[in-house]
């Protein structure tokens, strides 16, 4: 079955769901076909995926030094 073409704008609207694999198989196929043809959308996809990969390792917000000790103390001080 032929894949129905999709516009760049439609691709951007779904790019986040595409990364999260929260789209229908049909939409996925249409988008994959689009990425093969459109360097711009492919760049947006790769860049966005990189962002998600970069921030997702839990190191972005380092707790201030002594954070856990101070929190523990607070809890100890509970009535």
């Amino acid at each position, binding site marked *: 079955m032929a894949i129905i073409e999709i516009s760049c704008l439609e691709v951007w609207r779904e790019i986040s769901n595409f990364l999260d694999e929260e789209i229908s198989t049909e939409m996925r196929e249409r988008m994959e076909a689009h990425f093969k043809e459109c360097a711009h959308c492919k760049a947006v996809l790769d860049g966005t995926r990189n962002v998600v990969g970069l921030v997702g390792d839990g190191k*972005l917000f380092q707790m201030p030094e002594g*954070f856990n000790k101070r929190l523990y103390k607070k809890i100890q001080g509970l009535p």
Partner: protein
Amino acid sequence: MPPHSQLHANEVELIKSICDGEREAFYELVQPYERMVYATAISVVKNPADAEEVAQEAVLKAFSNLSSFRAESKFSTWLLQITYNEAKMRLRKARSHLYESIDDPQPSEDADYWPKDFADWRPIPSELFERDEVRLAIQNATNSLSGIYREVFVLRDVQNLSTKETATILGISEGAVKIRLLRARLQMRDTLAPGIDGCWFNGQPYQKVRPW
């Protein structure tokens, strides 16, 4: 039993014993989520000192309300919900003396976002993240997002929570989480792409691509 439900069962036990008076167990209960509490707080209040105070307040509040926790939701979701509300309250207080509106100006969520025109990124080596300037750039990019996008981005992508959990914590629909996450991710990519291009690698510069 999968590890998740095992953890959940352990927590239910812990909570029961804390409610029965075994207070010392409370730190054991919250300790695994310290970082999440802190990150949730800082996603709203932005600065580390405020975030720490919010985190402490939230944890103390969780303790005093522990008997009202219902085990049908995850303890972490409940704790982060308290944290988020505490952070919002603090933000309101901090801004109450200002003339500006309490929340960030609400960007229109219906308008489409047009991603900037950068060519492809090479895969980013994870060592890159060890570099302070890179982490700082990402923090700055995160801080430059409007509040409603930053909150969703930090919960979903930084803390890897599910759409459902994020919706519960923020008190918004799952659809709204998805729309805001899309915008946040595209904006983050737009902000960070030039850095990956120019400063973080000594590679060849990115080419612009404009297919139409």
